[in-house]
């Protein structure tokens, strides 16, 4: 918004003045809108968890066994990485609000770096699984394989959900790069930072999803013996 928006005034019968909220420059509106958007993400992943729980109820034992065979070390590392990235993102926003644009940019770059590391680790994990014959349209996951249904479903959902989560990470990286561009163009600055605020919210929800994905897939079967993966 290049030119400042001057809100209108409505006058009631007693002559009192009331500010009229316009759609321009509505920080709270922007925040509300983004929260509502995040609720749709909650419902979406909620739907997937529902499907997951559905089959978990039908095949409890096989789910435990399949979970035990995931690599908890890599999964755990990724958990910590996301944790830290949520911090850098938050600190960046804080710096921006305090007027430290340079520091904010640094923090965004740090977040991008962490996000990339997350993806690389995920890549290692998936390729290891591929080599063990468990991957979409491959090996044990093919229709003709005799792997138990419970396990097939577990891994099918695992690839779908972590895959979709990965897509969210990639979108997040894209958003952060765009944010950097906007900061450089001074469209996002210590006075107008709603975009930054919302992208930070987005990053938190990406993290939040992982907070549930991780224990459901990796930790559920931890007690049923099985060392942490390979």
């Amino acid at each position, binding site marked *: 918004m290049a030119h400042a928006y001057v809100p*209108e005034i*409505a*006058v*009631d*019968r007693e002559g009192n003045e*009331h*500010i*009229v*909220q*316009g*759609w321009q420059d*509505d920080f*709270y*509106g922007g925040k*509300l*809108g983004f929260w*509502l*958007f995040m*609720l*749709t*993400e909650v*419902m*979406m*992943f*909620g*739907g*997937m968890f*529902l*499907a997951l729980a*559905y*089959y978990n109820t*039908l095949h409890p034992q096989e789910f435990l066994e399949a979970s035990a065979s995931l690599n908890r070390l890599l999964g755990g590392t990724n958990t910590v990485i996301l944790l830290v990235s949520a911090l850098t993102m938050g600190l960046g926003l804080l710096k921006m609000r305090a007027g430290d644009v340079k520091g904010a940019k640094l923090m965004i770059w740090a977040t991008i770096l962490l996000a990339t590391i997350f993806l690389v680790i995920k890549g290692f994990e998936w390729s290891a699984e591929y080599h063990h014959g468990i991957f*979409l*349209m491959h090996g044990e*996951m*093919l*229709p003709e394989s005799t792997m138990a*249904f*419970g396990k*097939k*479903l577990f891994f*099918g*959902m695992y*690839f*779908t959900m972590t895959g*979709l989560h990965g897509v969210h990470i990639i979108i997040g990286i894209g958003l952060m790069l765009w944010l950097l561009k906007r900061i450089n163009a001074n469209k996002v600055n210590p006075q107008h930072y709603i975009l930054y605020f919302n992208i930070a919210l987005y990053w938190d929800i990406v993290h939040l999803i992982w907070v549930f994905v991780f224990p459901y897939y990796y930790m559920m079967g931890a007690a049923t013996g099985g060392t942490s993966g390979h």
Partner: protein
Amino acid sequence: MSKTYFDETHCAIGHPKSTFMQWMLTIDHKRIGIMYAAVMFTFFFVAVATAFLMRLELFAPGQQYIDGNTFNQAFTLHGVIMIFLFIVPGIPAIFGNIVMPLMIGAKDVSFPRLNWFTFWLYILGCIIAISSLWVGNGFADTGWTFYAPYSLTTGTNVIFTLVAAFVLGMASILTGLNFLVTIHRLRAPGMTFFKMPLFVWGIYATAWIQLLATPVVGITLILAIMEKYFGIGIFDPAKGGDPVLFEHLFWIYSHPAVYLMILPAFGIMSEIIPVFSRREIFGYRTIALSSASIAGIGYLVWGHHLYTSGMADIAKTVFSFLTFFVAIPTGIKFYDWIATMYKGKIVLATPMLWALGTIITFAIGGLTGVTIAMIGVDIHLQDTYYTVAHFHYAMLGGVVFLLFAGLHYWFPLVTGRMYNEPRAKIAFYLNFIGFNLLWFPMFIAGYLGMPRRYFDYLPEFQIYHQASFIGAVIFIAGLVYMFYVLIQGWVKGPKVGVNPWRATTLEWHLPSSPPPLENHSKVPYVDFDPYEYYHGEPVVKFDENMRRID
């Protein structure tokens, strides 16, 4: 003459000179609403054509004009267009856009650019849906419900249809989001939630459904697409999946979706009834809160579509029990409307005729809904024409009729002109008679055991199908006539000024008709109820600065 929103607009990008580009890039909520209407109108004709084709084919048993597979594609196309392209976005996208901001005294919606984007997302979805008629192996033949595993195994172009439904779902979510923020943020000063017009309440409740239910069907469609491309067996029994899960996930959205259709329609009803009874509405708060409770309870009853699916018997019982509770707030609304007519001064103008007609047709649609909410009875009636008649009475005789009511009611607001009243009434009667002749016989056929989605049928049912066909002809004639009357009104109807109905809500207190680009010249302070009449005349009056003078 002052400039109206037809003369100038704000654009998403730059300041294009050509009128065409100004329309393409417009972010003005009124223009976007009109464009939605134009597009939906076009698609609706495709859907009506397929509906008529089906009726023609069903005129007699055996094959007449099209073969079985074409018939299957025809009802899928009909269902998909009617649901995803027309009735789900329908009233919110058209009237939610055009009048909702006017009603709350806003200059536009909260995110006008998002609104523009949403419109084009909607168009993209339409294009994907329609293009599958020519791309790939023909349009999907799954029915609009896409039940797995049929949708996963059929050779037709289901992917396109699924993607289209997903994109349209996105558009629906974003519309809902936009409206929610608008209603929360941009109400005129003084307008509390219980001073909002009831149409806004309808849109508000609807927006919550759009926002929270649509993602579930979104993810269901994604899972189906994943399944089709990556072979994970989430719904495919050959790989251990359970088709019933698909039905759950599908109806978790699609049942709330029917309330998403009807709630804004009820909102239109609540606008029209007091205006044409020329008195204050009865039980404002109960009507407002019943919208909210229909939306809320509506989330809990999806299982009434699964009575014969193999779901656990105890779940059927729970769902049946819950389903009856949606009928109660609906009933309350109905009684409130009727009570509003008591000791009023009832003007039977065309919008009121449509509204009263709908009370009859939707009562039939809703009460037959209650019939099939009874488990034992639904086990007999599920997937028969009884169900088909139920939902046409609800959707066509409820939602579409009220959309027409709104079309007549807000016609002078949008165009600044008036249609020919006697002719519009003739159109209504044609429609009303045709509609009942079209769908009532189907209750009987369904009760006698005529299953739906049947290309061919046993000859006993012929008589009902024939009656229905005649109804369809009358109905469609009525429709064409109605649109003729409306278009004629727009082109050369008399100019009628800003408030021809002498209504009270804010959208009728604009500086010009049609309204100017940024709506109200000054935003009023709202310290009055939405329907304040005294002795048959509106109470609230404003001076040119939108200060109350009564």
